[in-house]
């Protein structure tokens, strides 16, 4: 495993992952991951399915806590603080590191309430109408949704629902937004809209996105981590690992690892 230093890394590290291994019960899912996720950039995780990229993503805001029997070794530092230290409250972690999921999952509430919900529980004390409008504008949903703010979130199309979920996540102004294959359930036009939006969003947020689509990684990300399944573990057990972490341009044009080269050129995966 190689950790080549992306050129951007010198500037500012937002989340540092240090020697992290994650297991479900006795089954190790991913082993020995090191990376420094830069602030104010888009970082993409790519790799074949089952390589643990979503597992690592979910470890960044402690969503794995919700999965029975999931345990983590190593350290995840956010602004220098260990997210897995004993005194850390995972709820506070998630208020600063938001998440957008694979399947659009709006709450069974109105569009307005979907966005206001998170803000309220975070003790928002500004103008709620303004916040809703600002969040919907940032998520490029305002024009489509402004006339039906009081309708159910389910009244929207799949792509609109996902943008609502993104608006919901940015309404609480987290520092980092994690996106777990946010476009995998969407049509190409909705995907395009979300990708355009991400270029805007990275001006104010650090974004980490898991994607199975390499073109998407090229289009949206500044830094890319390539995960692979390795067979080096005992027996037939397959364990995920991070093969290479570098500037997106380098990963796709001149990767330092043969496995990365094979994957990005479509020879496997």
């Amino acid at each position, binding site marked *: 495993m190689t950790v080549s230093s992306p050129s951007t890394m010198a500037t500012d590290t937002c989340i540092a992952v240090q020697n992290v291994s994650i297991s479900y019960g006795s089954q190790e899912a991913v082993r020995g991951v090191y990376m420094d996720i830069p602030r104010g950039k888009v970082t993409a995780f790519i790799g074949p399915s089952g390589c643990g990229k979503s597992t690592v993503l979910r470890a960044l*805001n402690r*969503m794995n806590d*919700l999965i*029975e029997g999931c345990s983590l070794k190593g350290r995840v530092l956010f602004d220098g603080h260990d997210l897995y230290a004993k005194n850390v409250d995972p*709820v*506070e972690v*998630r*208020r*600063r590191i*938001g*998440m*957008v*999921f694979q*399947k659009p*999952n*709006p*709450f*069974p509430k109105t569009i307005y309430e979907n966005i206001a*919900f*998170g803000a309220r*529980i*975070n003790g928002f004390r500004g103008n709620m109408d303004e916040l809703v409008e600002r969040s919907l504008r940032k998520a490029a949903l305002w024009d489509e949704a402004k006339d039906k703010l009081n309708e159910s979130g389910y009244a929207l199309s799949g792509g609109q629902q996902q943008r609502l*979920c993104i608006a*919901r*996540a940015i*309404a*609480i102004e987290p520092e980092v937004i994690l996106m777990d294959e946010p476009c995998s359930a969407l049509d190409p036009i909705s995907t395009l809209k979300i990708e355009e939006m991400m270029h805007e969003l990275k001006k104010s947020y650090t974004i980490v996105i898991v994607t199975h689509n390499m073109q998407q990684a090229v289009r949206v990300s500044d830094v890319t981590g390539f995960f692979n399944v390795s067979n080096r573990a005992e027996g037939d057990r397959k364990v995920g690992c991070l093969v290479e972490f570098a500037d997106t341009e380098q990963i796709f044009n001149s990767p330092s690892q043969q496995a990365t080269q094979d994957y990005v050129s479509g020879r496997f995966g």
Partner: protein
Amino acid sequence: MTSFPRGALTYRPGLARNRYNQLFTGLAAVFTALAVLPLVLVLVYVLIKGGSLISLRLLSELPPAPGLEGGGIGNALLGTLIVTLIASLIAIPVGVGSGVYLAEYSRGGAFARFVRFGTNVLAGVPSIICGVFVYGLIVATRAFAGQSYSAVAGGIALAVLMVPTVIKTTDEALKLVANELRWGALGVGASKFVTITRITLPAALAPIATGVVLAIARAAGETAPLIFTALFSPFWPDGLLNPIASMSVLIYNFAIMPYEAQISLAWAASFVLVVMILAANLLARWLGKLSRT
């Protein structure tokens, strides 16, 4: 090696297998008719014998002294409402809370398995035993302000009966809520408490309400847990710590009296009870349909 007979593909009713088919279908139809018949007969009798007696006077007066005519079931109607209300006020929080624990907090450990097992066992405890239990716990010990038989004791006995149903419906309804919804709430920084009370419980409201309505309907018609906890009273309810009348106990007491007036009142109370319970069941059915759309 014999070859199969190959004739025309027409249906021959005379074949042995086709005759058996008709015989069994006929038998199943008769069984179904026999199974549905009691419902029809009970409903017809209760509606005719009880329904013809219903009047405002009947619903608002006290039962007559033995041997006298007239009177009504006003106190029993009010008593059933009070006792069922007490039972619901206890059973709904306890049942929903336990269901929330099982579905949202427990991680399938030994304690959760024990609670699930205990819920099933409690659901199978005969209702008369619930009465015996509350008698021993509250009535015989005069636990409430030195009073023995009381509306509260009856309510607690009914609550013991309701709790397993409420736990099971809550547990199952919450399990049907998509995990993505929970993640969505936690992902914007909601605590477990906020996620449960603002997102998952509201999402599971219709199926939980269905189960709760059915549990209440069943409790309202129960007699065995009340006969030696709430007892009966020929008077209007007098506070929650005194014996109280209820329609089910009224039916039981009056049905075996040798007076025509009392027997009529038993039919009238049956009518009111059955109408209430059928209405509750239809409400539950409607709620259930609501939750599926």
